[in-house]
């Protein structure tokens, strides 16, 4: 299996899905001629033409609105939000329309739209190019939300998202784009939505997370192994619906759990995971549930020390993991 980047896995998934099904098309700001600001849709315009790699006006509400309409009509749109920060103008379309269509029409209509949005900071993007808006959409039944960490999951989950009959928000991490590469099979495969994945087995502590922070967790776990601390790491992969069984199984394994994400702590995905564990596994806990998240400040600072403070990193993970192991 060739090792390819996170970004290339995205491209492969879209290209293969567009080749497989002529109803699949991408739309968004600069996704066509330019191939996307991150080049995620590079080559699609050349291969599939302007009608299937559609450059849109700078209006996220319109992009998602058009995609929802096309999806209800039987198309399989992949709408790109240039940055997840810019997704908020489309929130009404996503939450009030896409998420509710099946329910509202009593199953007469569905909306197989995929909305891709790059999340996360650490790229000197500052306030408007670094946000993690998962928690905005997380509590909305009717949406599926995926946030892959590995290139393998990027490709498999994006393909699964395209084929899913309901709206899927695909949160890809922009810092992972070129930083993370991994082995990805050529050709067709999918990763089921709603299934978490054990990245590493261990029996001292359990780390649960998604997206970029898992990279730091894996690095930290490698170093902690030398100190005799073995970490069990679970990649949620899908945030909505959460893989309850996998979460409980991973926690039960060690009784000590650390939940990590870059989105801020209050009201984040970790809060729900923690609540789930508290509801189900009180008698199996050996330590208080810990969370390591972005601080509750309004935005990612643009100044490098501020950004460094905000971002998780290997050392922060290591420190938190060690503290939990020693508890």
């Amino acid at each position, binding site marked *: 299996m060739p090792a390819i980047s996170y970004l290339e896995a995205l491209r492969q998934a879209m290209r293969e899905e567009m080749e497989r099904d002529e109803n699949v098309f991408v739309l968004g700001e600069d996704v066509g001629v330019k191939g996307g600001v991150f080049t995620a849709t590079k080559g699609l315009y050349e291969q599939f033409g302007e009608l299937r790699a559609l450059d849109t006006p700078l209006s996220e509400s319109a992009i998602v609105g058009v995609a929802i309409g096309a999806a209800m009509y039987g198309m399989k749109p992949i709408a790109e939000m240039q940055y997840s920060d810019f997704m908020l103008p489309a929130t009404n379309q996503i939450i009030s329309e896409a998420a509710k269509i099946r329910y509202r029409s009593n199953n007469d209509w569905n909306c197989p739209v995929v909305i891709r949005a790059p999340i996360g900071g650490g790229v000197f993007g500052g306030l408007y190019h670094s946000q993690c808006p998962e928690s905005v959409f997380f509590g909305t039944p009717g949406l599926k939300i995926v946030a892959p960490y590995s290139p393998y999951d990027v490709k498999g989950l994006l393909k699964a998202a395209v084929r899913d009959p309901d709206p899927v928000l695909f949160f890809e991490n922009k810092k992972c784009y070129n930083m993370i590469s991994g082995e990805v099979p050529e050709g067709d495969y999918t990763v089921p939505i709603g299934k978490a994945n054990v990245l590493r087995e261990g029996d001292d502590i359990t780390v649960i997370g998604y997206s970029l922070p898992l990279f730091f967790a894996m690095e930290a776990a490698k170093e902690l192994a030398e100190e005799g601390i073995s970490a069990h790491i679970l990649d949620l992969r899908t945030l909505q619906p959460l893989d309850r069984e996998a979460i409980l199984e991973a926690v039960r394994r060690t009784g000590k759990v650390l939940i990590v994400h870059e989105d801020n*702590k209050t009201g984040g995905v970790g809060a729900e995971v923690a609540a789930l564990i508290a509801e189900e596994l009180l008698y199996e806990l050996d330590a208080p549930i810990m969370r390591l998240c972005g601080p509750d400040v309004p935005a990612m600072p643009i100044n490098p020390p501020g950004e460094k403070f905000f971002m998780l990193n290997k050392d922060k993970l290591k420190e938190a993991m060690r503290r939990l192991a020693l508890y």
Partner: protein
Amino acid sequence: MKTVTEIILPQLAESLVEATISQWLKQPGDHIEKYEPICDLITDKVNAELPSTVSGKLVKILVGNGETVPVGTAICLVETDEVSAETATGAPGGGQAGDGAAAQAKAAGESMRGRYSPAVQYLAAEHGIDLRQVTGTGMGGRITRKDVLAYIAASGAESKPDGQEGKERQASSGQDANRTNTGSVVAIDEVKVPVRSSGLHLSETPKIPTVEVQGQSVPGPGEYFIDVTPVRNTIASRMRQSVSEIPHAWTMIEADVTNLVILRNKLKDEFRKREGINLTYLAFMMKAVVNAIKDYPIMNSVWAVNKIIVKREINLSMSVGTEDSVLTPVIKNADQKNIAGLAREIDDLARRTREGKLNLSDMQGGTFTVNNTGSFGSILSKPIINYPQAAILTFESIVKRPVVINDMIAVRSMVNICLSLDHRILDGVICGRFLQRVKDNLESYDLDTKLY
């Protein structure tokens, strides 16, 4: 109890590797508060006061005034009491991770010995273990779940390998209150996803994603592609800017240059010999234009929305075409030059344009543009204004035509002069007068005209 703590030189800025201590603000024996400035630092980037990281008494200065030391070097010793020493040596905060719980455990000493987590109690009850017999290895002497598991394994009562122990525990817990999980526990054991190892690397610092230039798609059978050169791109954007921002109007006038033709024919060979360059019509025409601009300075202006900026200097831009582009080098202070001087400038700029040897300064400062479209045989053209100027003028081909003079038909050398104008600044009347003046100037050349 007193503890001596080092204060180290911190990394004040991202790329900073060293700093110089310019002056100590505190001396040994002084009492210092946390965050109180203790010395002044000079670095490549900033000069700053260094705040103390602890409270206590300054005992010794390790790095004196004027000395430069690397980041991380201890610069002084501070005697602190125990409480502050502990906070100073405490591990750096790891984000927001359960600070409270950890701190509580630390402060508690051995007090966690009798605190049993639900997991520990559950295991103890299940295996009938007296927890007072179990050694605690956790924080504050706390008995951890692992301690209990180890105790069970060691006690021999159930001397099974750890793995089996774990499995049994899982199975039994599955039968417990959360029956819904029983199936899934088994299922997960079966579907053990192999751990993928991805070839991650940290060596490269992530950059702001760069935008790759897109590859060209394949041309159809009836076409082929030409790269858009940077100069083509500039021309395109400037032309578009001019056309979309400036409301263009256009007008044309005809001049009788018979006398000019005679004059030039008489002078050109000698001029060529003397100066080594050609005496072109353009030099005469430019002189006529410059003199007309001097009479109507508004032609030499720029639209600035709430005002019109009239330029005192008359810098004539001259359109020079090459095989694949058109450039407009500038003849500075064209009104200060005589016809010979203009001819020399024209020759120099045209030659350097075609050789691609223009400097940036050759291209800047133009206030009015002249285009010699006649050089390629045109008799009428509608130029686009050289943004942000107010007008552009073209000289068309000189052609012999029958014209009526004093009710008689004569064969005269005629030329058309076209003008595109910014209608925000200029109107028909002023442009008519200006063109009339250009025409008069051209028609007034005669054999007495001096080149120098």
